[in-house]
């Protein structure tokens, strides 16, 4: 069975480590973060929802892309973006019904989740297992107070 990015909003503590990890992992150059592909929306203390690309089977972004700059990676099943093929028409940004395609004006690139090529940084840095890269959802209740908040140290991959 293939690994998936499993999101369990009930476990999310709104620490937003995933956003930071995503920004730095997708930085086009060192120390120059890109916009995050994942975002946490807090509704209440107990309700925090991380939203990222669902890698739809029939993906609207892929359907509107005229050049094939968005294509499915058969290994990870993620829809990946090839900047060299993009003609910047921004059709995908507005076609996505979940709002998971963004346009990074600073780098003139589409910003969408590519599951980091099969090892998502967001899941790696999630302290409460709200995001896991696995075949099964995490089991057991989470004691949110026991999670060491904001004690995550980043070792950034050089892009």
């Amino acid at each position: 069975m293939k690994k998936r990015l499993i999101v369990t909003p009930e476990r999310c503590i709104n620490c937003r480590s995933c956003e930071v990890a995503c920004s730095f992992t997708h930085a086009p150059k060192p120390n120059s973060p890109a916009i995050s592909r994942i975002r946490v929306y807090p509704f209440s203390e107990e309700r925090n929802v991380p939203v990222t690309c669902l890698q739809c089977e029939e993906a609207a972004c892929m359907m509107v892309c005229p050049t094939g700059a968005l294509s499915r990676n058969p290994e990870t099943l993620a829809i990946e973006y090839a900047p060299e093929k993009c003609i910047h028409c921004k059709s995908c940004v507005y076609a996505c019904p979940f709002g998971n395609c963004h346009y990074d004006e600073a780098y003139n690139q589409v910003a969408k989740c590519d599951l980091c090529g099969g090892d998502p940084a967001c899941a790696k840095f999630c302290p409460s297992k709200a995001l896991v890269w696995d075949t099964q959802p995490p089991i057991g209740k989470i004691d949110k107070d026991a999670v060491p908040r904001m004690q995550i140290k980043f070792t950034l991959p050089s892009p």
Partner: protein
Amino acid sequence: MRMVIDGRVVKAEPGQTLLEVATNAGFKIPSLCYHAGVESWGGCRLCLVEIIKASRPERSELVTSCIYEAEEGLVVQTKSERVIEARRDILEMLLARVPDSEVIRELAYEYGIIETAYVKREDADKCIMCGLCVRICEKMGAGAITMAERGAERIITPPFGEASDCIGCLACAKSCPTGAIAYLEEPDEVKIWDRSFARMRCKLCNAPMLPKEQVDFVAAKSGLSPLYFEVCDECRKKQSAKSFARLMA
């Protein structure tokens, strides 16, 4: 298959062009009109390289690497004396055509050219007639611009000067290697090819989005409902979060 580029053996797949093979292997070949998203057509000719075919080892020839397909046993030189000389000639001519283009000036300078020996074009714009914009517009599906007139008069324009097929996506202008296509991108409208397009606004937050013409065109072409394009990505994401939050116990 295997080839030799600048003395190094590299692997190539059938159907790959020399430019792709060389770029993947880390060699730098200058090019202006190459774009991976559209078909190459050897317009700017800057990417030329010197090759010796296995079937004809006694003679070398210059080819444009963006359209020449990889061959077994090909020996390629990307910066031989002959290549550099040819590129200098091309750059001198480009510099005479677009004396005000920063991109061409910088590229020419890299090849040691500060002034062109040719007569500079008067009232020159920045277009080098590489045709990338035409190919991109065709790929987009609109096919709104084309080359017109002949010889030195040749220009890129919408047919008969009227941009009736243009959808205002600005893809041509944003990919132009010399920034020759004038456009305006304001919150209310985009302007290109002497035509103005009103931008749609997000139903929820009023943020400016794509021109109506582009939405109608892309929706019809992809089979998606135009309803997909009524809300901006930020508001859609928020909506998704709300839906998921409702699903939580």
